């Protein structure tokens, strides 16, 4: 089981974590990976200035846009299936 954890803390929220979560929700569904990838939220991860922050398993990523999120999803989830 892979886990994507998106920060929903105050700063990351401002930087679009809401849209990023919605993107991942859809992406997981479209790839038919509901059973393999879990989407979670977390409050502030103490990297506010770099946000929006997210973890793929234990690795920290920053996504300033949906495009970033898409790239992360491609590289970290799809390609490492």
């Amino acid at each position, binding site marked *: 089981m892979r886990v994507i954890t998106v920060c929903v803390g105050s700063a990351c929220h401002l930087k679009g974590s809401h849209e990023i979560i919605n993107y991942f929700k859809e992406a997981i569904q479209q790839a038919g990976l509901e059973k393999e990838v879990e989407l979670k*939220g977390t409050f502030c991860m103490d990297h506010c*200035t770099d946000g929006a922050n997210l973890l793929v398993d234990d690795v920290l990523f920053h996504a300033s846009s949906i495009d970033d999120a898409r790239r992360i999803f491609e590289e970290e989830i799809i390609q490492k299936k």
Partner: protein
Amino acid sequence: MSQPLFIESGGANICKHGEILCGDSLSVATMDGGKLMVLSDGLGSGVKANILATLTTRIATRLMERGLPLEEVVETLTDTLPECKVRKIAYSTFTLLKVKEDGRVYLAEFDNPPTFFLKRGYISELKYRDRLIGSRKIREAHVHAEAGDWLVTVSDGEIHAGIGGLLNLGWDWEKIAKFLETQVYEDVSAQKVAQILVDQAKQLYEGKPGDDTTVGVLKIRPKRFASFMIGPPVKRDDDTAVVERFLNLPGRKIVSGGTTAGILAKFLDKDVIVDLSTMTNKIPPTGKLEGVDLVTEGVHTVNATLEILEKVEEVDALTGMRDGASLLAREFLFADSINIFLGQAINPAHLNPNLPQEMGFKSRSVQAIAAILKERGKEVFIEIH
């Protein structure tokens, strides 16, 4: 120690058909450790009655608040009320109800229908003593109320509802008493019961009330406490002491802010689980933490809660809403007494010039929320750490 009580009040009225002003007056005041309710029915109807009744409730409330004895209240009323030119009397009825948070009830009535006292859902008889003050015969009673008890006072318009029309002799006291027994239960508010009684009377009057009709309701129930922690203490060494005290207070526990929730989670040795299903595009999701009743994000949620509280006064208006700000507003509206732990440690990351300034303005919103809640008659204590 027995559980602290809260005296919840509600009131409603309708005017006599064709009148714009109600000739009854109902006033509710919060006194230290209790509530004071005064109901007065002025002689006649319309403007004159309204003035008499309003003066009566105002004067009585002021004097009772200052702790003056009943004799003085009655004498002052007699001396102050303007005399009716036609009838040559200065007259208005009154019911004074003083309920302390320890359950002591003092009741004085002059020419108003007897107060309904409901104990555990059933009408219970009040033992009155008559007392003559000047030329007026006043009925007084002392009782002890507990959580689950209700006191309901009505003007005679309520008792006469339907007279000569739908009901031959009007609704009468006994019938209202029986009706009340079917209406008072734990989950219904004092305001709701007052409204039901007045609506019922209006129906009996077939929409054209023959008299001003006023209802005042006091519901005695356990006091609802909530403690709200937002922001970490400036001195990190204080964390444990503050958290311990927070958790030991009675009532609901609410935490806002990721870092603050983290401090609690560490203390409780549990994890904060974010519930993504509660997220909206404006408000970040809420979290779950065992031992705490509600966890929300900080600044955005609190700002949105303030906006809600500026508009909404009744908990019921937020039924079904699941976002963090609505849930937080519900907690505040539901509680009678709120302890706010406002931590002022600044998240260094929030000072970054790349983040909007509003990130730093949490405490201003918290203070504004506290002011609104106080204005609505709630007890609010703010501790700054």
